[in-house]
């Protein structure tokens, strides 16, 4: 089976600074990947390029079996197989229902089908009673759960998570992590997550990608926490304070 993502010599430059330079990366289907690294190491840039939200300056990218040409119809086709949840997920003005229905509406689904799907995902995240609530009145934890539910409505093959549990309470973190695991195992969705929380990375990840100064310095399974070869990876994974890159 071909990899879900293959990146070769992909870079991104802002002004005179190269913020990303990935020689080779393969992301395989159905795994939960975590991208780790200090601030400014290029994690979010990598995630946004893989999510087709940011155009790379050089290199080749293959996503879900297609070589990326950044052509409009290709972007739409591939983006419709992915979803993203960010640190403080944006909620559209309106109700929770409006937010959950959005991805289905833009795909041209009918009212009954939308309603049924919305009820289904609200049930999954245990927030059925919030269906008609104002999306902007939700707490941080509730908002993130709705963001995950919103991503679930479109049944993505790949789910990107950029710091999905930063600044939220422990109870919500437990629930969100449970949902992430379920999505990965039940729906066979490939998860690519950026987190600063090393414990979370250890709890959720099948694969770890360690970044430093825009480059991938090491990859591996959870054993990386004990057996990292690179001194910088060892320092970071042991919780030592490492200097910020920017």
């Amino acid at each position, binding site marked *: 089976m071909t990899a879900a993502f293959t990146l070769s010599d992909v870079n991104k430059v802002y002004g005179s600074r190269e913020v990303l330079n990935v020689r080779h990366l393969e992301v395989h289907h159905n795994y939960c990947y975590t991208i780790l690294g200090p601030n400014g190491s290029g994690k979010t840039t990598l995630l946004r390029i893989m*999510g087709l*939200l940011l155009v790379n300056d050089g290199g080749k990218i293959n996503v879900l079996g297609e070589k990326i040409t950044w052509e*409009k119809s290709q*972007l*739409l086709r591939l*983006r*419709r197989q*992915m*979803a*993203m949840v*960010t640190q403080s*997920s*944006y909620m*559209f*003005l*309106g*109700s929770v229902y409006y937010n959950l229905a*959005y*991805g289905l509406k*833009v*795909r041209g689904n009918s009212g009954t089908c939308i309603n049924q799907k919305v009820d289904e995902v609200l049930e999954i995240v245990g927030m059925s009673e919030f269906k008609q609530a*104002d999306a902007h009145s939700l707490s941080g934890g509730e908002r993130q759960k709705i963001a995950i539910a*919103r*991503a679930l409505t*479109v049944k993505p093959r790949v789910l*990107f998570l950029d710091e999905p549990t930063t600044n939220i309470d422990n109870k919500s973190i437990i629930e969100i992590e449970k949902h992430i695991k379920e999505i990965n195992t039940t729906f066979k969705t490939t998860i690519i997550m950026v987190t600063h929380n090393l414990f979370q990375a250890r709890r959720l990840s099948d694969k770890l990608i360690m970044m430093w100064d825009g480059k991938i310095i090491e990859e591996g399974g959870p054993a990386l926490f004990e057996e990292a070869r690179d001194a910088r990876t060892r320092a970071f994974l042991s919780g030592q304070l490492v200097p910020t890159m920017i």
Partner: protein
Amino acid sequence: MDVIWQGVKEGFFLILSLDQELVSITVLSLQVSLTALFIAAFLGIPVGAALALKKIPGKKMILNIIYTFMGLPPVLAGLLVYLFLSSRGPLGEYQLLFTPTAMIIAQFLLALPIVAGLSARAVMTQRQEVYDTAVTLGATRRQAVWAIIRESRLGIIAAITTALGRVMAEVGAVMMVGGNIKGKTRVMTTSIVLETRMGNDSTAIAIGIILLSISFLITFFIIALEKRSFKDDSSIHIV
């Protein structure tokens, strides 16, 4: 103070008696201002959104010009329209001067920069996140741009209500291009000027009350359309 109180009482009596002239002035005012506002919104919102979202050469300069024209003095707008529509002007052959159409054009010129400028500002304040959220949920570019405009609707509604206030309260331009002709181009603001000059304070006050009530009702209606988005209780708690 007695004069004002007397004026208010007589004004209310005039309103309740549905004075024929008062009714026709009110109807014409509404026709002129709402038509001008509708056309300004129809053109101004897309122009504002395009200026905010598209890469257009000289965009900053265009925006600066629009912002300058937001403060366009009504008499100057009236003068411009007058010069274009007068018998010696380039559009003189259409004989539009001193007609409601001329008044609509003048008010449109006043409303357009406000709608376009404030709509552009409202769209510009939206964050990249809105576009990203829409496209990651499967929206096409067009759908994502529409999502940005939809999310800017509070600002756009503010733009429309501001423009409405401008055109409803405007007197200089409509006086110049409409001529305040009884039964033909007389509107509420020009009537207030005329009645005050003639010493008919009660009539002027009555028209003033109607003008204020209509402005309030229209604004109330516009906000009610989007009541879910407007919250009376501010989310900023100042202790």
